[in-house]
C-alpha cells in the first residue's frame, strides 16, 4: 500500500513537470545544441557543409563582427556601472521614511519600466532629432546642438542614456526591497557609535546589499549582451555601425542578407560564451570580496 503511494507520488512528480520539460527540450535544448552544431557548418541558405573552425577564423577577420563586439562591450562596461550606482543612490535616498514625496519619486523613477522597448526607442529618436526638443534645450542653455544620431560617439552616448533611462528604476526597486529587509537598529547603533553617513553606506549598506547587487549586475549583463531593440529602432545600428551590437549583427546575417545560418550561429555562440564567462566572473568576484 505504502509502496503504491510512493510510486504514484513518483509518477505524479513527473507528470506535473512533463509539459514544461518537453517544451523546454524542443524549444531550448534542441535549438541551442543545433546552433552549436551549425556553428561548425559553412554555406549559404539551407546548403551546409562541415567547415571545422572556418567560422571562427572568419570571426577574427570580420570587421563588422569585431565592431559589434567592441560596441557591445563598451555599452556593458560604461552603462551597467552608471545605472547600478544611480539605482543605488535613488534607493538609499528613497528608503528614508521621513522623505517628503517619497511615493511620488519612487513611482516616477520606476515609470520608464512600463514602456515597451520599441515605444521608448521611437520616442527618444524624435526627442533627440537634430532640431528636436533636446537640442533646442541644449541650445537655449548655451551648450549647443549635439549630433546625437549622426556622430558615432554621440550615437553611443544616446544608446547609453536611453538604456539608463529605461532600466534604472527597475534596478532601484530591487535595492529598495532589500533595504527594507535591513534591521534599522544597526543604523541607530552606528549613529550612536559616531559612524558618519558615508561610512554607514559603505560599511553597512553595501555589504548587506551585495547579493542583490550581484543579481542585478548579472541580469543587466545578460540583457546588455543581447541588446537589439534600442539600436534597431533608435539609431539603426549606425552611424557607420557605431551602435551595431552582436544581436543586431546576428539579425542582419540571418534575415537581411542571403542567410548564412552557420556563421550567425557562431556569432550567437560568442554571446553564449560571454554570458557564461561574465556571470561566472561576477560570482567569483562577489565571493572573493566576501572572504576578505
Amino acid at each position, binding site marked *: 500500500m505504502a509502496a503504491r503511494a510512493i510510486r504514484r507520488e513518483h509518477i505524479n512528480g513527473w507528470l506535473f513537470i512533463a509539459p514544461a520539460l518537453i517544451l523546454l527540450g524542443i524549444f531550448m535544448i534542441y535549438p541551442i545544441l543545433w546552433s552549436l552544431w551549425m556553428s561548425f557548418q559553412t554555406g549559404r541558405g539551407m546548403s551546409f557543409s562541415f567547415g571545422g573552425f572556418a567560422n571562427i577564423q572568419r570571426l577574427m577577420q570580420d570587421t563588422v563582427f569585431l565592431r559589434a563586439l567592441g560596441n557591445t562591450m563598451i555599452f556593458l562596461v560604461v552603462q551597467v556601472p552608471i545605472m547600478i550606482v544611480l539605482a543605488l543612490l535613488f534607493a538609499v535616498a528613497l528608503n528614508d521614511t521621513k522623505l517628503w514625496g517619497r511615493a511620488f519619486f519612487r513611482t516616477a523613477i520606476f515609470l520608464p519600466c512600463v514602456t*515597451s522597448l520599441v515605444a521608448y526607442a*521611437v520616442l527618444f529618436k524624435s*526627442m533627440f532629432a537634430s532640431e528636436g526638443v533636446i537640442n533646442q534645450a541644449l541650445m537655449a542653455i548655451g551648450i549647443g546642438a549635439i549630433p546625437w544620431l549622426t556622430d558615432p560617439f554621440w550615437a553611443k552616448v544616446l544608446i547609453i542614456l536611453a538604456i539608463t533611462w529605461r532600466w534604472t528604476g527597475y534596478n532601484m526597486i530591487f535595492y529598495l526591497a532589500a533595504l527594507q529587509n535591513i534591521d534599522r537598529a544597526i543604523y541607530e547603533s552606528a549613529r550612536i557609535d559616531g559612524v558618519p553617513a558615508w561610512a554607514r553606506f559603505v560599511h553597512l549598506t553595501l555589504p548587506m546589499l551585495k547579493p542583490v547587487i550581484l543579481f542585478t549586475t548579472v541580469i543587466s549583463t545578460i540583457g546588455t549582451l543581447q541588446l537589439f531593440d534600442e539600436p534597431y529602432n533608435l539609431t539603426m545600428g549606425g552611424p557607420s555601425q557605431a551602435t551595431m551590437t552582436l544581436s543586431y549583427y546576428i539579425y542582419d546575417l540571418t534575415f537581411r542578407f542571403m542567410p548564412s545560418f552557420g556563421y550567425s550561429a557562431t556569432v550567437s555562440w560568442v554571446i553564449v560564451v560571454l554570458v557564461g564567462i561574465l556571470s561566472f566572473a561576477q560570482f567569483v568576484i562577489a565571493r572573493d570580496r566576501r572572504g576578505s
Partner: protein
Amino acid sequence: MTETRAIADRLGETRELSLDPVFRYVRRGLLYLGLSIAAFVSIFPFYWMLVGSTNMSPDIAHGKVTPGGYLFENIATFFATVDVPRMFWNSAFIALVGVALTLIVSSLAGYGFEVFKSRFRDRIFGLMLLMLSIPFAALMVPLFIMMAGLGLINTFTAVIVPGIASIFIIFYFRQATKAFPAELRDAARIDGLNEWQIFVFVYLPVMRSTYAAAIIIVFMGNWNNYLWPLIVLQAEENKTVTLIVSSLSYAYVPDYGVIMISAVFATLPTLLIFFLLQRRFVEGLLGAVK
C-alpha cells in the same frame, strides 16, 4: 552593537558632519534637487509622447513642447494608414493566449518541482536555472529554421509556443509554493482528492495573488515582445502593436504625430495595469529573488 563599534574604531576620530544644521539643510536641498531632476527626466518622455500626439509632424521634429490642435488629425491618419483593430487584436491575442498557456504549464511545473521532491528532479531544476542564462539571440536562428520547416512562419503559434515553458515563471511558482501550507494538501488528500484535484481546487484558489503577479509579468513580456515577432510575423495583417510602431518610424518620411499616437497605443495597456495593480506589479518583479 559591536559591529558598528568596530567600524567606528577603524575609521578613527570622526565628527558627524550632519549634526551641523547648515550642512543638514544643504544636504537635504541637494537630495530634493537630485530626486526632482530624476523624476523630471523619467516623466518627460511620457509628457513628450502625449503632447506630441496633439502636434503635427514638423512641429514635433522641431521640439514643440506645448499641446497643439492636431490630435484628431493624427488619430485619423493613424487609422487610415494602419488597420488598428486588427493590430490590437493581434497583440491582445498573442499576449492573452500566451499568458494562459504559460501560466498553466509553468505553474504546474513550479508546483511539481516543489511538492514532489526527488533528488533527480532537483538536479534537473538546477540545470534549468543554468539555462536561464541562455540568451535568446542564440536560439533565434535555429528556432526560425524549425518554424519555417513546420510551415509556421506568419502564424501566432510560432510566436507563442517557444515562450510557454518559462524557466523564470517556473522558478517564481516554485518559490511561491514554499509558502503553500502542507496541511492543506494533507487535509485534501484525506478528503479523497487526487493530486490534480488538489492542484485545481485547493492550490489555485489559495495562490491567486501569485497568479495575478505572474499574469502581469507574462502579459508585459508578451505585449512588449519585439525581436521574435519581427522575425516570425512578416505579413502586414499579422503585425503586432510593437511591430507597427517600429515600421512607422522606419518610414522614409516618418510622420511623428502618427508615431506618437502609435506609441500611446503601445504603452497604454501596460501603463493601465501598472497604475491599477501597482503593488502586485512590484511584487511580481521582486517575486523571484525572495
